[in-house]
């Protein structure tokens, strides 16, 4: 480690305190025996086993010797023995650790196995074992503690060496004929030095404590010599007469042990062996309810009454994260309006980063903990979750009582993107489904499980009786996604929000899941909100399509009018979908450029930098405006011509855009 790193370790408050303590201890270790060595040995027959007096602040021992001086003088012996034991431990550990890298495969394995076996035993047990062999006394205890710690240090060296010895420069050195010994000293050890230094520091603390333990038991330092552990053991016998005789050496051991350990941790943090805590930027506790540019956002000027049969009505939805924006917040979702009627299927499309998934999660009140969700209106399945002037929803949801949970839990269903990670791996699938009925409808185990099996059958999971008792890892991806849909069907959902339900699946499986969603929609009459980056997928299933860009809705149109899309971004998305007529000689069309970072969106139309029709007008915010019946676009230059004239033939021009047998591989 470099000098700069040491300095950084010392700047860390913990490291500085620990280092200061160690310096103090080192000074004590040097001067205390010189200054008070005789005083600590002097017996005072007039003051045997006394408590605290003016002559002896910490009292005296059974021979009338001053406890305070003895504790101070013992610093040298205690520290010295601990460092000696650490040295033995490091040397033995390094030898055992590099042996496998040097020996042949067979004997190397043997060493690894021996170390693994020894590591399984607690160090104290090994220390007791060695203490028997080497005999009671300071010398035996040093050897015992050193050797007892060696296996775990050896394991550490082995792991680090194994990581390094696979690298190119070691292989190069081998090829170049560098000898084994030289290989270790010049190539392996220098590259594993940092973690070893850190651990040796922590180890010294451990050795100090262990030594105190052995001496306390009477197995370490023998009289007339004394260290802290010995003093502690002697003091404990008279703890009723003079507690400080036991407490003072105990405190000394704790302080010294902690100093070593904390210094090691501080160095480790600087070196980055353990990852340091991620620090969030400072910010105000909540985002401003009404942003400075709020007046000019795409939000409708005044909340209007939603359609009476709406299962979802959102106005002015904003989701803020603490981040690098101008006010310390970034808004990946920045003023979204959305209405979904009973039984309607609505698709939300956009590139990754357009805020569509976060919109879906926020609607369902499942946004991440750090997000702050505000909305002028947020009515979900007949429940008003926000009203009036931008209530904060994300931090402490205003209403989270069982009644709200039951309402949302039974009428709102979610299907998530990755079926592989969206099931609890340690719970059987059937029970995960049954949980919904048990919690919200108070059903018994058996009834709930029976319904879960029935729903699994509904989504055509084969052998549902058996499958219900299996764990998620025993399901295939498509089957898991169907089980996820089944989970949503445990009650009678009025709204199903499917967030990229097919993205993680094979193309053939994608089609099955989409077909299932469509059937579910038909049979239950539930409204479906399908979120996808794939406009072709959305066009197959949905009646209405909402296109999002940079956290806002840029266009809203019936699926059968996709060929008359008005927003250049919608057209670009459609243009990037290959179909059967696409010329395969040409490279696949893409939308040039990249969506803006939510922290630094351009003023005005966010798509302008990528738009070939952009001009100065586009520096002002466009609002969603009606361009045709049932079609609204937020664009200063809406395209009103028929796209067919450009030779493009997008999907979804058939009535309702449903073409179950014509699904191509498609990416936006």
């Amino acid at each position, binding site marked *: 480690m470099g000098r700069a790193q040491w300095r950084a370790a010392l700047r860390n408050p913990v490291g500085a305190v620990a280092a200061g303590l160690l310096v103090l201890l080192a000074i004590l270790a040097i001067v205390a025996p010189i200054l008070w060595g005789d005083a600590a040995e002097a017996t005072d027959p007039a003051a045997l086993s006394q408590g605290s007096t003016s002559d002896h602040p910490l009292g005296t021992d059974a021979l009338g010797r001053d406890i305070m001086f003895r504790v101070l003088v013992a610093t040298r012996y205690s520290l010295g023995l601990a460092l000696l034991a650490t040295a033995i431990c490091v040397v033995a550990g390094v030898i055992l650790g590099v042996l496998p890298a040097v020996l042949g495969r067979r004997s190397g394995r043997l060493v690894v196995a021996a170390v693994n076996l020894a590591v399984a035993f607690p160090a104290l047990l090994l220390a007791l*074992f060695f203490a028997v062999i080497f005999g009671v006394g300071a010398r035996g205890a040093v050897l015992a503690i050193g050797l007892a710690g060696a296996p775990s240090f050896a394991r550490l060296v082995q792991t680090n060496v194994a990581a390094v010895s696979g690298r190119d420069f070691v292989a190069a050195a081998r090829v170049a004929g560098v000898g084994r010994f030289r290989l270790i000293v010049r190539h392996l050890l220098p590259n594993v030095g940092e973690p070893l230094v850190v651990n040796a520091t922590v180890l010294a603390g451990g050795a100090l404590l262990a030594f105190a333990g052995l001496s306390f038991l009477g*197995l370490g330092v023998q009289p007339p010599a004394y260290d802290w552990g010995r003093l502690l053991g002697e003091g404990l016998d008279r703890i009723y007469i003079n507690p400080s005789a036991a407490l003072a050496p105990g405190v000394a051991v704790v302080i010294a042990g902690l100093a070593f350990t904390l210094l090691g941790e501080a160095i480790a943090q600087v070196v980055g062996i353990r990852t340091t805590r991620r620090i969030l930027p400072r910010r105000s506790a909540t985002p401003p309810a009404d942003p400075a540019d709020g007046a000019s956002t795409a939000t409708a000027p005044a909340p209007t009454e939603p359609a009476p049969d709406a299962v979802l009505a959102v106005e002015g939805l904003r989701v803020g994260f603490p981040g690098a924006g101008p006010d310390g917040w970034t808004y990946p979702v920045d003023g979204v309006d959305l209405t979904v009627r009973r039984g309607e299927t609505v698709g939300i499309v956009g590139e990754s980063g357009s805020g569509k998934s976060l919109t879906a999660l926020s609607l369902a009140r499942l946004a991440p903990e750090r997000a702050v969700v505000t909305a002028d209106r947020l009515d979900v399945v007949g429940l008003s979750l926000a009203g009036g002037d931008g209530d904060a929803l994300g931090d402490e949801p205003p209403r989270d009582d*069982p009644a709200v949970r039951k309402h949302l839990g039974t009428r709102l269903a979610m299907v998530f993107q990755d079926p592989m990670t969206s*099931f609890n791996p340690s719970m059987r699938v059937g029970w995960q489904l049954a949980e919904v009925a048990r*919690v919200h409808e108070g059903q018994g185990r058996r009834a709930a499980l029976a319904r879960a099996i029935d729903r699994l059958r509904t989504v055509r999971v084969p052998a549902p009786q058996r499958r219900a008792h299996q764990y998620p890892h025993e399901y295939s991806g498509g089957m898991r996604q169907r089980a996820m849909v089944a*989970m949503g069907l445990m009650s009678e959902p009025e709204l199903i929000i499917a967030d990229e339900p097919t993205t993680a699946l094979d193309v053939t499986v994608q089609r099955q899941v989409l077909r299932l969603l469509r059937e579910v929609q038909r049979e239950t009459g539930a409204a479906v909100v399908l979120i996808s980056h794939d406009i072709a997928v959305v066009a197959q299933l949905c009646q209405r399509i909402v296109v999002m860009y940079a956290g806002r809705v840029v266009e809203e149109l019936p699926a059968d009018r996709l060929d008359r899309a008005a927003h250049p971004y919608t057209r670009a998305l459609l243009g990037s979908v290959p179909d059967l007529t696409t010329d395969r000689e040409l490279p696949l069309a893409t939308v040039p450029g990249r969506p803006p970072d939510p922290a630094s969106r351009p003023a005005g139309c966010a798509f302008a930098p990528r738009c070939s029709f952009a001009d100065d007008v586009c520096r002002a915010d466009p609002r969603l405006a009606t361009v045709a019946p049932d079609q609204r676009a937020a664009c200063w230059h809406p395209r009103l011509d028929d796209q067919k004239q450009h030779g493009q033939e997008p999907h979804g021009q058939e009535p309702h855009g449903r073409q179950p047998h014509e699904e191509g591989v498609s990416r936006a």
Partner: protein
Amino acid sequence: MTSTPVTPPAAPAASAPSAVAGWVGNPWARFLLRRAGRLLASLAVLVTLAFLMIHLIPGDPVRAALGVTAPPDLVEARREALGLNDPLAVQFVDYLRALFSGDLGVSMTSGVSVSETIGQRLPATAGLAVVAFVVVMLAAIPLGLAMAVLTRGGRRRGVELGFTSTSAVVAAIPEFLLAVGLVFVFGVTLGWFPVAGREGAASYVLPVLALALGPALLMARIVRVEALAVMDEDFVRTARAKRLPPLRVYLRHVFPNALTSTLTIGGLLLSGMIVGTVLVENVFAWPGMGMTIVSSILAKDYPVVQGIVLVYGAAVLLVNLVVDVLLAIADPRSTIREG
């Protein structure tokens, strides 16, 4: 380690006879076979080392035990009685034979059989370790989960800092020093609990506390970190999407998935606590094996030390085995069984 030959851990499992080929295909059978093989190998090494211990001591252990003033013919007679004059291989075979018939030898100083001594002392030690372990589990898991819930998503920085730094400092203090502090506060100053001996439930309080406090805080830290990691998983979002009550989300969906590392650490802590009893017993004059082994080492009563080392070592190995089996059960994906 010493120069003792060490059997590779997996060796017995590798040579499974073909008669059992039918259930060798079963991952559970394979796992248990492999794991049992490792236990046997470890036990073999443990027994060998315990046997060799007396021979590795420089000089004559009998002379050392009886003292320099003992008459030479007494030493010789004792050597003969202990079989120390036989060839090493013969001694080893005799030792193994005696071990399998439950005979651990006779104390050099008191003449009492070692297995009898252990039989008297083991319950006290085991009781202490088990009670302390139960306390650790009962305290650490709720504490760790509660801390994870309180500090999730970077909330309550103060609570987090207070918890992590307090637990780090307390967990770094070894149990015997905690024990001395507890004796001072609750025994000497407040007089609430007895500070020595094993009589009644009250006498358990301080030793158990001394033994359990550090591991409990360490464990709570692990539980917190693991639970925080699990809370970020997709399936927790699914559980929230089902609108389960928060407590159910934490107990049914978060905690079981944080269990694996909790168990691993719990096993390490338990084996550490078994040996930690040695120091705590000596602070509280607890009539267990820890007191006995220390006095036997000081008295150079090697057969007793040998026997007790065997018991401690076997206990540690057994705990490791139980933890591995529990891990295999707790992990439905059976990565441990396969690996």
